[in-house]
């Protein structure tokens, strides 16, 4: 449709950088989860801090663009969507950090974390896909992502009900799994938010998702 | 060497142009000087206010103004109305181009012929016989009025036409009928130009002699009515200058000074109240 403007390109580059931070941190978190590593809190905190700085940059860039270029229509939507995206991405990072935090709080050496680990993989894939939908302006893909959130919710509720289904497990493990699943479920929600923004960006219509 | 010769050429051209200008300005100053010098010799109060019969030019001054006034009464309204038609109604069409061509052609007719026209249509028609001609100032006014029409008409058309269409559109958008718009807005804005044109036309006819020679003829007495022979400064100058009598030639100079004053004064007034005629090059 329209050729991208220079300021929109710069904003998008910053969003891509934010996503890279999330990818890296995500990999660290997944590794830590699988191997039950501890003591990564300060490393994760650094990531969280750097993404917050990036978020500030995106905000500043967006506000500046609105003032200087007074964008309309798809340009205007692109800028407002970018602002929201940057917030969502920083939230995603924050949740990843929360997983590390939770990992540090509990003694999880003997716990079975396969379920949450798989959940995390899927949630990260959702974020990845929603960003892809954003860069490709693919409303259809975004709609599919929102739909896939139902299964995440279902699995989250299953993990929550572990204390009934697997009463033999250690309380600490049940607690850890539940908390982490809750965090990841929230993370996946943000992927859905991003997707709904993508739909708005492309079609100009708001879905009542958020 | 080449540059030097070019510079020399430039100086040469400059001096040549200056000399030419001087060569033409000098006769002007010379005429003005002669008219003032010889004219003032004739001037005194009684010369200006007494009629020809008593050795003055009073009736000729009055006659010139009466004839001019009558010419204005005839020429200015027709000129203004024709100019108004050409500017506001006659942008295109055969009738408008005919009127425009007529007005332009009218300005190209020698004034002598206009005088002949007045003579043939009025004097001969009113006369009893070839030996007893009834000369009248009205015929002069007709000829001079005919001269004024193209001058006033052109001035009116041009000063109305330069008014921006924005103004006309503003009036149209207010729902003002065209005739009110034309008279009370466009003409009202152009009235300066119309006045200037009329003044210059007045000055121009003040100097015209040929149309008066065989229409108003001359009179030694104060005018008693407009349907009579009437003295005028122009004819007085012509007759007296050719008479050869030194005292009459002196009176002709005195009349010439008065006539020149009228013409020069109008030109200077117009000059002062209008913008410079020629735009600066750069």
């Amino acid at each position, binding site marked *: 449709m329209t050729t991208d403007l220079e300021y929109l390109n710069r904003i998008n580059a910053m969003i891509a950088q934010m996503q890279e931070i999330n990818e890296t941190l995500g990999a660290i978190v997944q590794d830590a989860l699988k191997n039950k590593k501890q003591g990564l809190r300060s490393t994760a905190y650094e990531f969280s801090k750097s993404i917050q700085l990036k978020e500030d940059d995106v905000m500043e860039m967006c506000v500046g663009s609105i003032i200087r270029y007074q964008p309309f229509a798809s340009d205007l939507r692109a800028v407002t969507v970018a602002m929201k995206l940057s917030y969502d991405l920083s939230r995603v990072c924050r949740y990843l950090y929360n997983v590390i935090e939770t990992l540090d709080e509990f003694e999880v050496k003997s716990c079975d974390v396969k379920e949450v680990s798989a959940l995390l993989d899927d949630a990260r894939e959702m974020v990845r896909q929603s960003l892809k939908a954003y860069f490709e302006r693919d409303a259809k893909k975004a709609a599919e992502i929102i739909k896939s959130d139902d299964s995440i919710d279902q699995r989250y509720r299953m993990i929550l009900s572990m204390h009934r289904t697997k009463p033999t497990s250690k309380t600490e493990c049940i607690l850890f799994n539940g908390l982490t699943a809750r965090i990841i479920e929230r993370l996946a929600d943000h992927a859905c938010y991003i997707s709904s923004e993508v739909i708005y960006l492309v079609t100009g219509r708001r879905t009542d998702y958020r | 060497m080449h540059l030097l010769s*070019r*510079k020399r050429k*430039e100086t040469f*051209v*400059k001096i*040549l*142009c200056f*000399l*030419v*200008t001087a060569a*033409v*300005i000098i006769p*002007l100053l*010379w*005429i003005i000087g002669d008219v003032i010098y010889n004219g003032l010799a004739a001037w005194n109060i009684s010369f200006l206010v007494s009629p020809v019969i008593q050795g003055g030019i009073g009736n000729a001054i009055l006659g010139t103004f009466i004839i001019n006034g009558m010419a204005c009464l005839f020429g200015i309204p*027709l000129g203004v*109305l024709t100019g108004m*038609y050409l500017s506001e*109604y006659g942008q295109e069409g055969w*009738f408008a181009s*005919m*009127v425009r061509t007529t*007005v*332009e*052609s*009218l300005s190209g*007719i*020698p004034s*002598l*012929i*206009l005088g*002949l026209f007045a003579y*043939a*249509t009025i004097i001969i028609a009113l006369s009893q016989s*070839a030996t007893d001609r009834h000369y009248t100032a009205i015929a002069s006014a007709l000829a001079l009025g*005919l001269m004024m*029409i193209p001058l006033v008409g052109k001035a009116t058309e041009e000063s109305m036409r330069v008014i921006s269409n924005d103004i006309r559109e503003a009036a149209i958008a207010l729902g003002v*009928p*065209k*005739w009110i718009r*034309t008279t009370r807005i466009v003409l009202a804005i152009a009235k300066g130009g119309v006045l200037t044109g009329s003044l210059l036309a007045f000055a121009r006819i*003040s*100097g015209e*002699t*040929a149309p008066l*020679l*065989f229409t108003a003829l001359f009179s030694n007495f104060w005018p008693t009515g407009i349907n009579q022979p009437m003295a005028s400064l122009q004819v007085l*100058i*012509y007759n007296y*200058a050719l008479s050869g009598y030194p005292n009459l*030639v002196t009176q002709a100079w005195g009349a*010439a000074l008065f*006539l*020149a004053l009228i*013409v*020069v004064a109008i*030109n200077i007034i117009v000059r002062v109240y209008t913008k410079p005629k*020629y735009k600066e*090059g*750069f």
Partner: protein
Amino acid sequence: MKARKSHFFKLQDSLFKYFLIACSLIVVGLFVAIFLMLFETSLPSIYQNGWSFLTGLVWDPNNNIFGALPAIAGTLISAAVATLVAIPLSIGIAIFFTEYAPARSKLVLSLFIDLLAAIPSVIYGIWGLWIIAPLIKTNVEQPIIGAIGFIPLFSGPAYGLSIFLAIVILTIMVIPIITAITIELLSKTPVPLKEGMISLGATKSETIRHLGLPFARLGIVAAVILGLGRALGETMAVTMVIGNSYYWPFSGYSIFAPATTITSKIAGAVGEAGGLEFSALLEMALILMVISLAVNFISRSLIKRTSKRGFG
């Protein structure tokens, strides 16, 4: 109420329009009347004299012999020579005005040019008759006749009042017309082109020669023709200084001899003329009018062409 008012306005509008058209028609009618009057009055002369009116040299009212050639020749020669002399002078003044004259003096200079055009011709006449004629007679005509009088063009005797003086006066009267238009044309030279030439190192005279004059050429031609029209129709000054002798240039070729023109002949004779002479005089006027209108028409169509022509 409102509708009635609009109706009323519409009526006023069309009344006004027809009023203006009527006035314009009066002007057209007067013009046609002039033409018809000249034509109708000259018919007896046209019928009586035929083509010999144009070729005849004798004007004899007593024997009803009318030949207009000396007057026509005098008119054409005096007007043409005066205009030709005026061309270089006018262009010189115009160049001086647009290029060299100090800005402050321009106002005075343009006023002078206007005054030169505005001074009544009868004043030029009295000045030529009483001031210039004696001066020219003793200081120009007599020395020239003395020196090169054997050439027919400059042969004597010196009259003072002569076709030569008429040409001098006509030249002065024509100059302001050509000058004013030339100044206007020269000052309309496209400024970017002018600046371009100056920036290439051209002098002012070169700029004028290569840019200003070519640009204004057509307009100057129109101005010259307009000046010619003025000279052709000029009456008073010429009548007063030309000497009114009917045979020149067929009596001899000297430019110092008295002559006549159409206008001076008419001005001098019409008051007393009757019958066929009056008709012949009006035929002369008709010829003058046709020449004047043709000249005027050519000049105006040239001016229109210059104003339409686009530059840059």
